[in-house]
């Protein structure tokens, strides 16, 4: 027995290391709650700050930070907001970890998560913990399904698909339409399903439909050839901007120049490094926000954002900005103090959001209302890219 004791020492040290790490986490949690003492509501955010979808996560982080700073500066004696965003790398497992870390740090309301699949995993945890969730951009129907505490500020995917199909039928009736979508993605298939059923509702047919998955999003030659052979001159792309940029670059090399129609995932294509943005000229996209709008509120926001972060905000930043204001307004209506538990805040916020007379106003729409399923009701807009800018149609 005696000769084993050094090995046990190693083991004990390792176990202690794990505990030391936890202690670090616990320590920062304490500092978080002490901040909570000075009349502050703790908002948490979860999203991809690194990895392929990082542009969205960072936009949400910046947009929310801007709104938090504005609210805090405008009303130094009132309810202050504290914003903390954690990285999830667009992975469900890590998203749950990030969410739990925020819970440890005393988060009271979650503004997130940014992308759909991680949000579905986090929503289940938040439902059990009774944490109020308002996501700026997770648009999948699975996010709100069965979770009375989860609300979306963006359109749900089905609604984007329906709105896109209606718009194309009304304005591009003579075009031959094809679709390239990502069948490995809730977001993309969700939009595609509804787009197809809405587009084909009155006898029209999609000329070609091609799919790809996350692991094969570099080479689109096969899909593009199929589009070309079917005579497609308008491709609907319910996908994120990175694969979309590859599609545009490769189509250009093939000498194929169809019209592209994207949804909100296309937003951000003009800021993609290493992409020739002239290829995106004439791209149509469904987006609730354009930084080139004449609206005074939007102009103020864009200027403040550019001054602070040195780049033009994308739709996700505006969504997050609106989320923070919506949460702030709704929290004001609950009549609760900032020392209320997240569960109490959750129940009160659900009542406010589904009460029927609560409307939020922001950059992405004049009026936003929510139904009991957690879906938002607002008017969609379609923009076209001209001279490297979004122009409202």
């Amino acid at each position: 027995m005696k000769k084993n004791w050094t090995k046990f020492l190693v083991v004990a040290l390792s176990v202690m290391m794990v505990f030391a790490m936890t202690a670090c986490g616990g320590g920062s949690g304490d500092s978080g709650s002490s901040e909570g003492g000075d009349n502050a509501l703790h908002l948490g955010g979860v999203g991809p700050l690194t990895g392929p979808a990082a542009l969205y996560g960072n936009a949400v982080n910046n947009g929310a930070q801007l709104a938090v700073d504005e609210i805090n500066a405008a009303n130094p004696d009132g309810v202050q907001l504290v914003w903390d965003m954690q990285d999830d790398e667009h992975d469900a497992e890590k998203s749950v970890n990030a969410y739990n870390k925020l819970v440890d740090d005393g988060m009271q309301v979650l503004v997130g998560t940014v992308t759909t699949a991680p949000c579905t995993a986090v929503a289940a945890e938040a439902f059990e913990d009774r944490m109020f969730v308002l996501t700026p951009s997770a648009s999948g129907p699975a996010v709100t399904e069965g979770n009375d505490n989860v609300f979306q500020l963006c359109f749900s995917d089905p609604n984007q698909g329906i709105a896109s199909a209606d718009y194309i039928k009304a304005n591009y009736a003579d075009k031959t339409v094809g679709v390239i979508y990502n069948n490995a993605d809730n977001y993309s298939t969700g939009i595609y399903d509804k787009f197809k059923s809405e587009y084909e509702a009155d006898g029209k047919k999609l000329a070609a439909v091609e799919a790809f998955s996350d692991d094969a999003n570099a080479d689109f030659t096969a899909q593009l050839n199929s589009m070309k052979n079917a005579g497609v001159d308008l491709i609907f792309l319910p996908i994120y901007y990175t694969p979309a940029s590859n599609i545009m670059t490769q189509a250009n090399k093939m000498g194929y120049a169809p019209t592209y129609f994207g949804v909100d995932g296309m937003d951000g294509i003009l800021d993609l490094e290493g992409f020739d943005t002239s290829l995106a000229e004439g791209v149509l996209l469904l987006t609730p926000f354009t930084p080139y709008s004449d609206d005074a509120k939007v102009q103020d926001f864009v200027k403040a954002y550019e001054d602070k972060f040195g780049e033009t905000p994308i739709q996700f930043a505006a969504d997050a900005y609106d989320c923070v204001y919506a949460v702030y307004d709704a929290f004001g209506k609950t009549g609760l103090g900032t020392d209320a538990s997240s569960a109490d805040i959750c129940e009160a916020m659900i009542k406010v959001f589904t009460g029927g007379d609560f409307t939020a106003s922001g950059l992405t729409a004049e009026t936003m209302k929510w139904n009991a399923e957690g879906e938002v009701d607002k008017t969609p807009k379609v923009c076209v890219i001209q001279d490297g800018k979004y122009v409202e149609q």
Partner: protein
Amino acid sequence: MADRLFKSINARGLRGAVKGSEYKKEALISYGILVIGYILLQLGAMTGLIGHNLQGQFVPICVYISLAISLNLVVGISGELSLGHAGFMAVGAFTGIVITRVLENSIEFGPLRLIIAILAAAVMAAIAGFIIGIPILGLRGDYLAIVTLAFGEIVRNIMNVLYFGLDNNGHLKFAFNHTIEGIDTSQRVITGAIGATGVTKLATFTGAAILTAFTLFVVLNLKNSKQGRAIMAIRDNRIAGESIGLDVKKYKLMAFVVSASLAGMAGCMFGQNYSTLAPVKFNFNTSVLILVFVVLGGIGNIWGGMIAAALLTVLPEALRQFADYRMLTYAVVLILVMIGTYNPAIRARITAFVNKIKPKKKDKGKEKTGKEAA
């Protein structure tokens, strides 16, 4: 040649003699880590010392430990490099999800459903391991690694186009395309590359710890059995093994199938811990991650792999305070640890230090260096 063979067989015989005490030591440390870790974490969770963040990782930690143990059976004990462990994990995870969903209405008691699902996952993963094992175990070294890598990719790509759904009578149907006849989209259990959503979570820390103990039990006992010694003899010298009448293919297949089956069980537990699970989770990166646990813990060293798995699972979360530099810090730490534990100079220093603080016993030091050389 004959001389070398004789030496090798002789060495094997000698090693077999010291096996008993070595086995006891290894088993004691491995079970010790598990039991102490379980009690400490459970106490920490009860007293509130451990926050949500770490509590949420209890099940993944157990799962990754199980995976590290089972991969060690192939990499360490059988001596073959496998890069497709996540594939078996995927088979187990999705089998488990389908089984629990089908039984949801007939068996109310959650843990029983979980046990049935885990058993089914073990069988399915074992079948997958058997099918893939037969043709490839004739291959050696790099070739085996490449084929197992391909296997992992094949499994994931099949999962990408596989759809499961329940019809109105509760019968399971599946298809390889977007629509399953007679099944509404809301009745889908697994939707191709999107994977499963709306999973009723059945995994608990205690359940996962028991699974880890079971994995440990199987691997340690196999290692210490007649079959285990045969597997290791073949690893050390295939020709010598064959010359004394060992069926090389049979023993290699045995290690491979048992390892696959255990990985399937761990995968099942993993799948039951999240409300959503997509095939992309089981990509090449996950296979490599498990291999990193094994290599970092010392190939063939069961409890080393356990500690490596636990620490590397917790590490990215513990580094959250580095914000933007988190994953960079993780990579740097990983490199430093790898260099640190494999650098002969540093190892010699650690050994010297250990020998210094150790109660004086002369033969102990010899045994230590002997083990390292092996």
